[in-house]
């Protein structure tokens, strides 16, 4: 479903990503771990075109981004890509002037040009799925962090993407809610979605991610099945990170 090859990214003359490669099979979950400044959020932003890549290729659900493409062509590909990839930001970025329902139907109605009533019906289903059946008319301001996050997830799902990107989905949650969130995300793979989850919480990714990618200083250090990477890391740097994390 997703295939990244030698992805490079330079910001202000500094190379932030030094050639990252990985693959994510359909209906699986890739967890990206690493310390702060390791480049994991930048990598995630490259996956839906918020950052333009300066080297390598990303292929995602049939859309191919290549560093060599001209600006206009790249923008066209990104536009196509965003129809297929949903993103949930670490800080959510809900639209404060719209209700939960308004946040969710905004893109289906104005971007995908769906019928408003149909979009609202779908939005209510999504809110029910994330456990916020009664919150449709509420504004983000009046919600708890966890509720806001579930609205953000519903908003991303409303465009029916095959791929969902999550940046630190547990940062706004208290420990009780972390397990709920894991169950919720697990359901999405069953429903046909492919997930990429950036998290500093190894505990959260255990039992969620099928594969893990460990990043350090903009480089992919180790990539493998979750159980293998956690239990028998091959690289000394991965071992050190895991020891400190525990």
């Amino acid at each position, binding site marked *: 479903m997703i295939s990244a090859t030698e992805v490079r990214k330079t910001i202000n003359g500094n190379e932030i990503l030094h050639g990252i490669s990985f693959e994510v099979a359909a209906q699986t979950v890739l967890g990206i771990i690493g310390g702060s400044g390791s480049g994991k959020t930048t990598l995630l932003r490259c996956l839906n075109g918020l950052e333009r890549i300066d080297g390598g290729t990303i292929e995602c659900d049939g859309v191919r981004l290549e560093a060599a493409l001209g600006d206009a062509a790249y923008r066209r590909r990104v536009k196509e890509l965003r129809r297929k990839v949903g993103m949930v930001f670490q800080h959510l*970025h809900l639209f404060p002037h719209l209700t939960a329902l308004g946040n969710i139907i905004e893109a289906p109605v104005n971007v995908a040009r769906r019928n408003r009533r149909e979009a609202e019906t779908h939005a209510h289903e999504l809110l029910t799925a994330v456990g916020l059946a*009664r919150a449709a008319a509420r504004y983000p301001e009046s919600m708890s962090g966890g509720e806001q996050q579930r609205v953000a997830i519903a908003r991303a799902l409303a465009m029916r993407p095959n791929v969902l990107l999550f940046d630190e989905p547990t940062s706004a949650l208290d420990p009780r809610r972390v397990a709920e969130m894991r169950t919720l995300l697990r359901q999405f793979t069953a429903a046909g979605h492919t997930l990429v989850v950036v998290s500093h919480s190894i505990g959260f990714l255990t039992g969620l991610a099928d594969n893990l990618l460990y990043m350090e200083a903009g480089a992919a250090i180790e990539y493998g099945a979750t159980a293998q990477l956690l239990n028998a890391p091959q690289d000394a740097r991965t071992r050190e990170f895991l020891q400190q994390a525990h």
Partner: protein
Amino acid sequence: MPRRVSCPSRLIVILLCVCWPVAAAHAQGELRWGADPSGGAPYVYADPAKPDRYIGYEQELVEALAQAMGRRAVFVPTDWETIVSSLQRGEFDVIVNGLEPTGDRARQILFSKPYYVFQLQLTVRQNESRINSLADCRTRMVGTLGNTAASRLLAQERIPFRAYADPVGAYRDLELQRIDAVLLDVPMEMFYARRNARFKPAGAPFQPGTYVVGLRQGDEKLKAQVDAAIDQIMRDGTLERILRKWNLWDDRQAALRAQLDAPPTAQAETFELTNATFNWPEAIARLSRAALVTVLLAFGAMVLAVVLGMPLALGQSKGPRWLQTVCTVYVEFFRGTPVLVQLLFLYFGLPRLGIVMPGWLTALIGLGLNYAAYESQVYRAALEALPRGQWEAAYSLGMSPALAFRRIILPQAFRIALPPMTNDFVSLFKDTSVAFAISVWELATAYRELANASGEFLLLGGIVSAFYLAMSLPMAHIARRLERRMQRRQIIEQTTVEAAI
């Protein structure tokens, strides 16, 4: 009981001690006379050859009067519109500025005996065929000097007129076809219009009146001295010599001199005094019309500013480098120079480039362009106050920049911008008063003219302030309600939902 004198009051005492003798000296050896030298030829004006020196027939007249009185003439440049109140406040001792002894002025100041007989002259453009007399002007716009016998005649005859601060502006607007005719005293007409090939007189001079010296009420002693001095320079031929020099001597002046020895009753019959008095209902009607102009001006300018401010803000924050520079230059130019100067430039400067607009449109566009600079900064601040994440969230949902701006950014930015925009609108509302500089008849102009004509500065000031408040307070109220409704809408919907649960 001994009392300490505080520092400020001690300062005042010292100032009084220093100033009193000076003021007293004025009363003895000097004759301080006030006149408006701006566009003031041939009365008194800056010598074109030596601009730091004032010349004019009245300047020479006052020199002669002062000499006859054994005093030294000291010229105090002042403003024609406020000349009576300046005299009352004591800035000078006499007005010598082609002052007509009108009935309303007679209640405020003393007049000397007349020293000159003037007539009014209607001037039109060379190619004008419709206007041959004042009677042809009922549906036309006539320019004149504000607060004069001519303006009183026009008001009395109910002829639409525009009052100018100086004859230069009136004749220039006639030339630019902003008005259809100019009615002014013959001395001004002679100096500013007669030699201009683009103008021609419409009919003969008419409506004779006199110029007198104005004095403060209660200054009877000085009045007697001035009257005696006028008699003297008439008798000894000094006045005739001065007037002939300025090409102003005619049979009427000779007749005026002949009356020196005639019985005093003849004088009132010979010369029709311009004594139109102040008409209150008319004044209120004119104030209401001026208020309407003010409202239209403010709303028109604000619409222009609000619309034009947005592309400016976007150009400045999101445009390519060259566009950013253009927008920044625009904003800094309009913020960094006084709006008064901008209006004068648009009104008097643009016609040189072939662009002629009526005064109200000039004021509307000038204020609109000026406030667009301010609105653009309000918008820019509002746009920059929104986190970048709002754009990114919109993009990540597949929105184009235009759609993201319209659906996500603009509604949020509008809420942030609304309070400062309201503020600007109220401020723009008051700034419409600068339009008086280009003879637009809005409230401030109306106040100045009517108050000068009647001397009712306090009463008219109260009425005009009430007009301004009656317009600006509802506006502030509406804006506050709009802001509150935007905030409350969220809370209400929240609580109803929570109540349902």
